[in-house]
C-alpha cells in the first residue's frame, strides 16, 4: 500500500468527511428524536416551541387523550402482527420449497420456471390492485386478513434469493443419503433442507416482516373497517380533525406505530445491513 508523504491534506479531508458523516447521522436521528420528545410534551409547550429536544412530563396525559379517540394502537398492532407474521411464515416456507424444487430436481420445465420467476420479480402488487380487489370483493373477502396473507405463498423475490443461497449451501449428496435411508421427499425437505436454510430464512423473514408491516396500498384498498386497520393505516387517522390541537398525542401516535420497528432494528441491525448488502430487498 502506497503511503502518501503529504500528511496535512488527508487530515483536513478526514475532518470534513467526519463533519459530513456526523451531519448525516444527525439528519437520520433528529426527526425521530423530535417525534419521541414531542410525544411527551403538552399542547401549550409545543405551541410555545415545537422544536422539543428534551423530554417533558406529559406522556401519560397524551396517552390518555389518544386512547379516547379513533386511533387505537393496540388494535393496529395486533392486526399488523397477525398479517405480518402469517405472511412472513408462508413466504419463507413456500419460497424455500419452490427454490428446492428448482435446485434439487431435474424436471423438464425447471429452467423455464426459474426464468419466469426472474421475469416477474419486479412486478409491484399495486398495479393489479383493482383486479385483485374485485376478485376479493366478489367472494366477500374484503375486510378479511386472508387476502393479505395467503398471496405470500408466491413471493418471486424470496424464491430468487433462496435459490441463490441454496445452490452452494445444500450438497445434494445429503439428499441422496436421506433417500437411501428411506426418507420421504417431504421429510427430507422439512427435516434436512429447512435447517440448512436457517440463515437465509432468518434474513428473508426479517425483510418480509418489515415490508409487510409497512405496506399501505393494498391494505388500504381491502380493509375499510376501522377495527381491521393495520398500523400504517392508523397513521392516517391521526390526520383527522379530532387531533387538530392535540399535537403531543399525534406525535405519540406516530411514535407508537414505529416503536416495534425501532426495537427490531436495533436488535437485528447487523443482520439487516448484511442482508441488504446481499441485495435481498428490492427498491
Amino acid at each position, binding site marked *: 500500500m502506497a503511503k502518501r508523504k503529504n500528511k496535512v491534506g488527508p487530515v483536513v479531508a478526514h475532518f470534513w468527511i467526519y463533519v459530513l*458523516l456526523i451531519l448525516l447521522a444527525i439528519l437520520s436521528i433528529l426527526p425521530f428524536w*423530535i417525534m419521541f420528545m414531542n410525544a411527551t410534551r403538552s399542547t401549550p409547550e409545543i*405551541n410555545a416551541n415545537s422544536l422539543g429536544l428534551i423530554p417533558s412530563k406529559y406522556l401519560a396525559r397524551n396517552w390518555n387523550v389518544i386512547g379516547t379517540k379513533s386511533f387505537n394502537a393496540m388494535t393496529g398492532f395486533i392486526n399488523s402482527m397477525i398479517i405480518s407474521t402469517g405472511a412472513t411464515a408462508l413466504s419463507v416456507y413456500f*419460497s424455500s420449497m419452490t427454490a428446492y424444487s428448482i435446485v434439487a430436481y431435474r424436471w423438464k*420445465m425447471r429452467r423455464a420456471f426459474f426464468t419466469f420467476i426472474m421475469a416477474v420479480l419486479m412486478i409491484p402488487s*399495486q398495479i393489479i390492485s*383493482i*383486479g385483485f380487489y374485485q*376478485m376479493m370483493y366478489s367472494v366477500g373477502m374484503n375486510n378479511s386478513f386472508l387476502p393479505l396473507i395467503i398471496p405470500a405463498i*408466491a413471493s418471486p423475490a424470496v424464491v430468487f434469493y433462496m435459490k441463490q443461497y441454496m445452490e452452494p449451501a445444500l450438497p445434494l449428496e445429503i439428499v441422496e443419503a436421506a433417500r437411501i435411508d428411506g426418507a420421504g421427499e417431504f421429510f427430507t425437505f422439512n427435516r434436512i433442507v429447512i435447517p440448512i436454510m436457517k440463515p437465509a430464512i432468518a434474513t428473508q423473514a426479517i425483510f418480509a416482516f418489515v415490508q409487510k408491516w409497512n405496506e399501505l396500498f393494498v391494505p388500504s384498498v381491502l380493509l375499510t373497517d376501522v377495527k381491521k386497520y393495520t398500523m400504517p393505516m392508523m397513521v392516517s387517522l391521526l390526520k383527522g380533525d379530532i387531533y387538530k390541537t392535540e399535537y403531543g398525542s399525534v406525535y405519540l401516535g406516530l411514535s407508537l406505530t414505529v416503536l416495534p420497528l425501532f426495537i427490531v432494528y436495533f436488535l437485528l441491525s447487523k443482520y439487516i445491513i448484511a442482508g441488504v448488502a446481499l441485495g435481498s430487498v428490492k427498491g
Partner: protein
Amino acid sequence: MNKKKGVSYAKWGYIFALPFCIAYLIFMIYPIFNTFSIGFTNMTDRLQMQIAQEEMMGIEPTVQVELLRDEEGNLTIFDNYKFVLTDPNFWSSLKNTCIIWGVNFAPQILLALVLAVWFTSTRNKIKGKGLFKVLFYMPNIITAATIAMLFTKLFDYNKGPVNDLLRMLGVIDSNIDFFSDEFASKAIVAFVQFWMWYGYTMIILISGILGISPELFEAADIDGANGWQKFRFVTLPNLKSIMLFTLVTSMIGGMTMFDIPYMVGGQGGIKGHIRTLSVYIFEMSFTGGKLYNRASAASMLVFVMIAVLAAIIFFMLRDKDEMARHKIEKAQTKAYKKMLKEEKAKGGVQ
C-alpha cells in the same frame, strides 16, 4: 449432474413447485387479466351497486357489466384508455412522478457513491463505520406512512419545528406555508424519498465495490494512480452494472411511489402538486366515484412502463454463466446426435 438419478424424482420437482404456481396463478395472473379486462368495460362502483340492489330486490338486472359500446352498439373498448390519455391529471401525475423521482435519485446515487468510496477506502480508515451504516439505513426500515406524517408535522405551517428553527436562526421573519407551494411540496417529498433510500443505495454500492478484485486496486497503486484516478478508472467502470441495477430498481419503485405523496398530500395531492401515478390510480378507483374501469386502464399503462423497465433488469440478472453452460450443453448434444446419425448413415462402421 447425474441425469439418471434425476429422472425418477422429477415429479417431485413439480410437486414442490405447485403451491407457488397455484398461488401465483390465483393472486397475480388472474388479477392482472381481471384488471386488464375491466379496463375495457363500463364497470364502476355505481354500476355494481345498482346490480347488487336489483339483485336484492329480486328483479331482473336492467344493467350489467359489459364491454363499452356507443349508442349504435359499436364496440368502443378503448374509451377508458382514451379518457386517461387525454386526462390532464394523468399527464401531470406522470410528470410529478418523474420530477420527484429524478430530484430524489440524482443526489441519492451521488451521495451513496461518495459514501461507499469513503467507507471502502483503505487509505482513510473511517472510525465508527458500522454505526454510521446503521444510522444511514435506519429511515429505510421505518414505516413510510409514519415518516410522511412526521414530515408533514415537521414542516407544518403553524406549529412546525422547521419553521420554529428557521425563525430562531433568524432566516425568516414569518412562517412559511411549505405545502401550499408547488416547488416546496415537491421538494419535501423528494427529500423524504432521498433520505429514506440513500442508505440503502450506499450499502448496495459498498458491496459492489467490495466485490471488485483487490488486484485491480493494487495494480493501480503500483502504477501510481491517485485516489481520483482509481475511482475514475477502476471503481466506476466496475460498478457500472450494479449502478444500472440500482437505477432501474429505483425507477420501478419510483413509478409506484405511493405512501409518501399520498400521506403528505392526502386525496387531491395538495392541488395536484404531488399527485403521483399511484395516487392518481388510487383516487380514481377507491375514492369518490370509484371508476374502476378508467383506473384499470391507467394501471395497465403504468404496467407497460414497468414491464419495459423490468425487462431491462431481467436481462441483467440472467445468470450469464449458466446460460453459456446451457448453450454449450445444447451444442454438444446436437453434435453428438449428428455424429450418431452420420455413423448410422455410414452403416455403423466403428
